[in-house]
C-alpha cells in the first residue's frame, strides 16, 4: 500500500473514533442524568417517609420537608449507561490509537509533526490517561467531560487541519522530536484530566454552599476534598512531564537554532504554562489558596495549554512554525 492509501485508512479510523466518542459522550451524559434521577428518587423516598411520619402523628401540622442529607448514593451499582459509555470509550480509543499507528507507518516517522497529528496524538493520550487513571480510582464520572472535549478537539482538528503525508522537513529531523513533542502531549493529557477534576471540585464546593441545586448527580460524586486530592496527584505528574518538555525543548533549540532559550512565542507560552502549574502546586501550600483558588489555577493552566496549541500555533509568529497548514 502506498503511504497515501495508508493515510486514508488512518483518516477513516480517526473519523470512526470520533463517531464512537460521540456515542460514548451520549452514554456518559445519560449516566449523569440517571445519577440525578437516583438522587431525586432517594430524596423523595426520604421525604415521603417524613410525610408519613408527620401524618401519622397528631395530624396537625405541615410536614417539614427538609432536604435530607443524601450523602451516600442510593445504589453503588454501576448504571447500565456508565458500563456502555466505558465500553464505547475503550472501543473508540483502540480505533483511535490504531489510526495513529497507521498514520505513523504512512509517514515513515512519528505521527506528531503537524497540528492535525498533534491533535490526534494529544486526544489519544487524554483518553489513555483517563482510562489508566480508572485502574487506580473510579473516575468514570469524568467520561462526559473527556469524551466531549476529545470529540470536539479531534473533530475540529481533523476537519480544519488535516494535511497529507509529507516527509519530515530538516528542522524536525531529530531524535528530540520524538521526546519533546511526545512528552508535551503526555503532559497535556494529565492536565486535561486534572482540569476536569478541578471543575467538578469547584462544582462540589459551590453545591456545598447551597448552589447548583439542580445538579443532583453531584451528590453521587466524591467530595470536593477528595476530588482536589486526586486532581493534585494527576496535575503533579503532568507538571513533571511539562518540565521535561521545557528542558528537552531547550536542548533541541540549542542543537537546531544555536541557543537554548530565546523567548520565541512558543517558548514563552510553554514557560507561562509551567509557571501557572508551579503556582498551582504552591497554592496548595499557601494559606487562603488551597481549595477553590488552586482549582481555578489548574483550569486556567489547561486553558493556556489549549491556547498554546491553537492560537499560538496559528496566529503568533515564531520559530515553531510546524502547524503544517
Amino acid at each position: 500500500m502506498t503511504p497515501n492509501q495508508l493515510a486514508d485508512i488512518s483518516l477513516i479510523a480517526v473519523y470512526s473514533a470520533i463517531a464512537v466518542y460521540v456515542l460514548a459522550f451520549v452514554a456518559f451524559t445519560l449516566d449523569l442524568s440517571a445519577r440525578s434521577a437516583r438522587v431525586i428518587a432517594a430524596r423523595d423516598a426520604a421525604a415521603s417517609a417524613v410525610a408519613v411520619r408527620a401524618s401519622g402523628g397528631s395530624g396537625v401540622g405541615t410536614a417539614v420537608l427538609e432536604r435530607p442529607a443524601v450523602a451516600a448514593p442510593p445504589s453503588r451499582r454501576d448504571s447500565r449507561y456508565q458500563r456502555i459509555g466505558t465500553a464505547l470509550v475503550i472501543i473508540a480509543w483502540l480505533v483511535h490509537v490504531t489510526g495513529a499507528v497507521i498514520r505513523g507507518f504512512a509517514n515513515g516517522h512519528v505521527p506528531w509533526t503537524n497540528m492535525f497529528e498533534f491533535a490526534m496524538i494529544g486526544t489519544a493520550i487524554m483518553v489513555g490517561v483517563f482510562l489508566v487513571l480508572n485502574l487506580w480510582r473510579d473516575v468514570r464520572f469524568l467520561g462526559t467531560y473527556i469524551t466531549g472535549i476529545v470529540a470536539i478537539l479531534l473533530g475540529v482538528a481533523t476537519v480544519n487541519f488535516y494535511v497529507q503525508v509529507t516527509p519530515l522537513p530538516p528542522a524536525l529531523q531529530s531524535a528530540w522530536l520524538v521526546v519533546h513533542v511526545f512528552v508535551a502531549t503526555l503532559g497535556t493529557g494529565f492536565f486535561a484530566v486534572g482540569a476536569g477534576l478541578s471543575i467538578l471540585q469547584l462544582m462540589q464546593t459551590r453545591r456545598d454552599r447551597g448552589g447548583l441545586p439542580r445538579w443532583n448527580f453531584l451528590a453521587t460524586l466524591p467530595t470536593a476534598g477528595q476530588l482536589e486530592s486526586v486532581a493534585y496527584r494527576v496535575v503533579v505528574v503532568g507538571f513533571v512531564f511539562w518540565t521535561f518538555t521545557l528542558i528537552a525543548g531547550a536542548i533541541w533549540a540549542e542543537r537546531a537554532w544555536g541557543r537554548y532559550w530565546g523567548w520565541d512565542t512558543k517558548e514563552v507560552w510553554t514557560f507561562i504554562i509551567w509557571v501557572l502549574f508551579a503556582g498551582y502546586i504552591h497554592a496548595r501550600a499557601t494559606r487562603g489558596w488551597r481549595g477553590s483558588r488552586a482549582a481555578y489555577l489548574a483550569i486556567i493552566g489547561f486553558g493556556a495549554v489549549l491556547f498554546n496549541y491553537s492560537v499560538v500555533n496559528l496566529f503568533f509568529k515564531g520559530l515553531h512554525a510546524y502547524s503544517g497548514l
Partner: protein
Amino acid sequence: MLDHRPDDYADGVAAAPRNPRLGPVGWARFAWRQLTSMRTALALLLLLGIASVPGSLVPQRTSDPNGVVMYQQRNPELFKTLDALGAFNAYSSFWFSAIYLLLFISLIGCIIPRTTHHLRSLRSAPPTTPARLSRLPSHRVEHSAAGPEEALTTAHTLLRRSGYRVVRYDQGDRITLSAERGYLRETGNLVFHLALIGILVSIAIGSGFIYSGQKIVLQGSSFTNSTINYDSFNPGRFYVDGQLDPYSFRLDSFEPRYSIEPRTGRVTPQEYTARVTIREQGAAARKGIIKVNEPLDAGGTQIYLLGNGYAPSVSILDPAGKVIDTSTTPFLAQDGALTSLGVVKVPDGLSKQLGLRGFFYPQPVQTAQGIASIYPDAGRNTLLSLEVWQGDLGLNKGVAVNAYSLDTTKMTKLAGRNAPVKALQLTRGQTVKLPNGLGSVRFDGWKRFIGIEIRHDPTKVPMAVLVSLAVLGLLVSLFVPRRRVWVAATKDGSGARLEYAALARGDDPRLSDALASLAWQHLDRLGERPSWTVGPDRDAGGSGARGWSSS
C-alpha cells in the same frame, strides 16, 4: 516552595493582631517578612506568568528584529508608546526584571531559614510520641501474644529496615517508638530551588561571555572567523577583541534534497547538507558536514546551518559592451519553491547610480497572477526578472544600509510595473539592454548560499548540571513521602496491646496503606495471623481498589 513553616503546620484562624509601633528596623523586618512570605512569592510567581504574555504579542528585538521594524512602519504612534514601556525588549525590561528579581529574593529569603531548619532536623531525633495516638489521621489497634518488649524490638528492626529513623520513648507502662522517614523530600525541594537560583546566576554571569554572529557564505567561498567578516555580530558584555579563534572554512558544496507531494504539488525540503573544509590553527585541514540539527564544532564555537538560498550572478555592461561590474548577490527566499527576492546595486561605472530589484525563479511557470516558481531546483528555465531604478542609491552618507532593500526615494523607475519599459527577464547566459541606452545586463548564473550562525556559549555545561539537579530535586520532592510513624505497646494480659499511628508531612496518598502494611508485617513477624491482606489493590484498611477514601 517558599514556605518555611513545617509541612504539617495547620492553618488556624489567626486572632486579630495587635499592631505594635514599628521603628525603621521594625519596618524593614516587616517588609522582609512580607516579601519572603508564601503569599507574596505565589503572587510574584503568577505575576511572572502574566508579565510574560506581552512579549509574545509584539515582536521582540532579540528574536524577530525585522518584525519590530515592520511594526514601527505600520503603527508609528503606538510603537513609540510601547517602545517606551520596553515592550519590544519585554524580557529585559525593567518591569519584567523587577518581578523575577523580587521573586528570586523572596525565594532566597525563604530558602535560607528552611535550609538551616532542615540541617538541624537532619541531626535531631524524631519527636516524642503523642499521648493519644488515636487522634492522628491514620491509626489502628492490634493485639499480640508476644509481650510489649519483644513486640517493640521487632518493630524497631522493621522500621529501621524500612528506612525510618527510630527513637524509643518509654512512658511508664507504655513503651513507644517514634520514627520518621523521607527527609529526602525536603532535601530535594531545597536542591530544586537552589538549582533555580543557580540557573539565574549562571545566566546572569554567563551571558556576558556568549558571543554569536551571522554570516552568509556562498558556495565555493571561504569565511574566516573574525569580527569584521560577520554580517552581524553580537558580543556579550565581557567579550574582548581578539578573543575569536581565527579558524576558517570553505563551503565546498551545499546539497539540498526536496520532495514533491503529487496530489497537492506542495514542495517540502527533505535534507540540507553543507560540506565544508575547516582549517584551524596548528591543525591539518579537515572536512566537515553541517546539517540543520547537527551543528559543527570548530575553534570553541558551534556553526549552525540556519538558512539557504540562491545568489544570482549579474554583470553590467556599459554602452560599449565592456563589463563594468560583476556581482553574485544573495537573494532572500520568499516561499518553499525558493522564489527569491533581492537587490543588485551598481554604484560606479555608469553616468548615474543604478539599482536592480527583482525576483529569481528557479522553476518558473506562468500563472494568471504572474510568474511563480514551482520547484526549488534551478535549471535551464531559471528566470531572473529585474526592475531597473536610476538615481541616488543613498550609499554615500556613510550610514549602514540594508543590502536587501533598495531605497528608491531618490531614484526613478526605468523598467518594471508602472514604468515605461516592462521588467527585464533573463535566462542564464542571456544579455538584455537596459532602458535609455544605459548599457546592458547579463545573467551569468547562480550559486547556492547558506546562512550560518556561529556561537560560543560557555553557560551550557553549568546549565546542564543545574537543570539536572533541578529535575532530580523536583522528582524527589514530589514523590518521596515524608512520614512520621509511632508504635506503642502496653501490657495486655500475657500479650500486648499494640497501637500504630502515622502522620504525613505534605501530600501523601499512600499513608494509610503504608501504615496497614507496616502493621501487617509487624504482626507477621510476631507470629500473629493478621486478619487482613496487604497489596497494591487490596483493601488494607486504607483506600480500597479504585475507592475514594477521605484524604
